[in-house]
């Protein structure tokens, strides 16, 4: 087992390196250097920049040096000092913004993955056990809709439905009066009023895939001999299903974490724009449209790091659960 974890972690290192390269490329992509964009932006707002200021920024990011040195400077700043550079759009260090926004994105993503399983596992079992029944067809249809309707659309439609029916406008995480309040029961219930919609939308987009995977793997198991044996011994149908085939059929679900994480994190970004959530989504969008690239690159990097690490954890979980994989 230790051997397996070690082998996987060794793969992780080049991954992290490549991600940092990709993020750095993202920062470099827009035409012109950071200073040009910075100066332009200030001019648009009516400000001016002195030559010394320009020079100090150039020195800070090493903009006059070759690309490799710039990358080295950027990455050592991140690793040693946790300094991702500055965002001129928000006039704050990128690290500050990341600390504020990333935990929200991560927790919304994790909760919605949990919810996805909570919804999808019973439905998947039901469609496998009652194959070709009304329910099976219904869930297949809903899965298809979940695949075809993009998350932002679902969010818009639900928002519209809620607003048209009740006049309650879901926007952001908290109502205005709670925004600067410390945590309390009232604030929490206020959050629940808003947060159910993004959670629901994110889970529904994932549910479709999980139902399909679980249905297929459970159908495979149900035809095996040990199921027949257990049935012959007189186990009740539900006890039989829950005790044996489910435990094997659930394995592929752990590996679905690998593709669910990136999908959910990406979906969260789009939905948070529609629902005006104070997470990474709106910040990333604003950063990309304003070409505030240190911020954009930082967000891309942290989110990618987190999903890659999440995939790594799901691999280990799978190995813990399935001896065939850890023996390899």
């Amino acid at each position: 087992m230790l051997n397996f974890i070690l082998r996987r972690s060794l793969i992780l290192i080049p991954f992290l390196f490549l991600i940092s390269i990709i993020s750095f490329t993202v920062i470099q992509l827009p035409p012109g250097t950071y200073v040009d964009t910075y100066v332009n932006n200030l001019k648009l707002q009516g400000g001016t920049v002195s030559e010394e200021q320009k020079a100090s920024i150039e020195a800070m990011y090493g903009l006059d040096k070759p690309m490799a040195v710039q990358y080295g400077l950027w990455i050592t700043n991140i690793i040693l000092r946790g300094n991702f550079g500055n965002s001129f759009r928000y006039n704050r260090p990128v690290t500050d913004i990341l600390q504020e926004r990333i935990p929200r994105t991560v927790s919304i993503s994790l909760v919605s993955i949990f919810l996805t399983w909570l919804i999808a596992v019973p439905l998947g079992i039901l469609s496998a056990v009652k194959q070709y029944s009304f329910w099976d067809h219904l869930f297949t249809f809903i899965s298809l809709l979940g695949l075809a309707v993009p998350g932002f659309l679902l969010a818009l439609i639900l928002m519209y439905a809620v607003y048209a029916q009740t006049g309650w406008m879901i926007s952001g995480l908290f109502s205005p009066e709670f925004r600067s309040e410390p945590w309390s029961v009232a604030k929490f219930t206020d959050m629940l009023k808003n947060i159910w919609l993004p959670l629901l939308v994110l889970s529904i987009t994932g549910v479709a895939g999980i139902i399909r995977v679980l249905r297929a793997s459970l159908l495979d198991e149900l035809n095996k001999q040990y199921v027949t044996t257990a049935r012959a011994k007189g186990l009740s149908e539900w006890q039989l299903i829950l005790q044996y085939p489910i435990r094997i059929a659930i394995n592929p679900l752990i590996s679905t974490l690998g593709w669910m994480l990136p999908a959910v994190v990406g979906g969260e970004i789009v939905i948070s724009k529609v629902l005006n959530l104070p997470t990474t989504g709106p910040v990333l969008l604003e950063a990309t449209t304003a070409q505030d690239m240190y911020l954009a690159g930082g967000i891309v990097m942290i989110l990618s790091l987190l999903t890659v690490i999440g995939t790594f954890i799901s691999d280990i979980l799978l190995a813990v659960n399935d001896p065939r994989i850890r023996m390899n």
Partner: protein
Amino acid sequence: MEKVDQLDRQADKQGWGNAQAPTADRSRSAMNDRSAQLNQRYRRNKARRQILAEQLYGASQYQLMRVKFKKHRVAMLSLYLLGIFYFVAIFAEFMVPYTTTQRFEEAIYASPTQIHLFDAEGKLTTPFFYSSKSKIDTATFRYEPVIDDAATVNRIQFFAQGEPYKVLGIIPLNRRLYAVEGEQPLFLLGADQLGRDLLSRIIYASRVSLFVGFGGVIISFFLGILLGGISGFAGGVVDVVIQRLIELLMSIPQIPLWLALSAAIPTEWTGIQTYFAITLVLSLVGWTGLARVVRGKILSLREEDYVTAARISSASNMAIIFRHLLPGITSYLVVHVTISIPYMILGETTLSFLGLGIRAPDVSWGTLLQQAQDVVVITNYPWLLLPAVFVVAAVILFNFIGDGLRDAADPYAR
């Protein structure tokens, strides 16, 4: 098929199942009737199946696929419907009366025009509608259509003459599918905040949205086959490196990457250039799935005898991959492409919706949905959500066709 009919007639002549034997027991005779009918049907079907089997005995894989696909009713229906989508998109200039930028200042947020078929006396006439103007309601600040008191009747003309234009930029024409006499505009699906016809815009937008898939799929198809093929065929270190690269690309969240990459598209680019940049962005991340499929198939095929034979006759590696291995998996490739086009469409829609894709004045379904971002606007003018219906319909149709193709391509399916 003539042969089958012949057999059917033969069966009827020989009197299979013409059970008219008099029996005392009525119920028993009814049962005999029934069983005779079933027997007859069984024999007919059996004969039909036999002939079909004989016809298909020497059929190529593609003939088999076509026969199987045609039996898949949902997939066939989807194919026809999607064909209509593409037809309308290609001949957009002919299909709709207005262009994407034509404004009607008195029709801001005009609701879908009500078409009448019966005139005031209740007589059936050609379709017409009453003139109306959009006026803001001072109480709700909502634009409402106001029908003039002296309601003038506007007739809809089919294949009407109008401004000359060129179909696909080549064929000059001046007739359109429908148009209105006079100045009053017709909005079958309503108008937007600048008084532009939503239907015209949706149909012009479908050009971008429906074809964005192809460009992206071609590029990711090429990348996927090349890298997947090499990975599966070469094995060893090359395989490991490509596999790790795929794993990495798959575990990075795509949407932030798309957003960041599309920020690199310079704002002064034209619509067409942006369009190609978007397809490129979409396909750079989209080839991984196909590469995995190709690798898996090649891995299992490369141990086959015919590959060894090719290698012994000193065929080059590339020749083996492209001449001998790829034809064996073409059916899987076709299926995969059909399934990946809708994802490209969704990707473009999402990017454009967020304002990072196609830019005005060019339109795509995503840019049209941008106007529907505000819930208050949707509540007042719900028809602005209609482009979404087209997106979802296109994606579902592609999925149905993909399902049909997958079943047809699978030699072990029933």
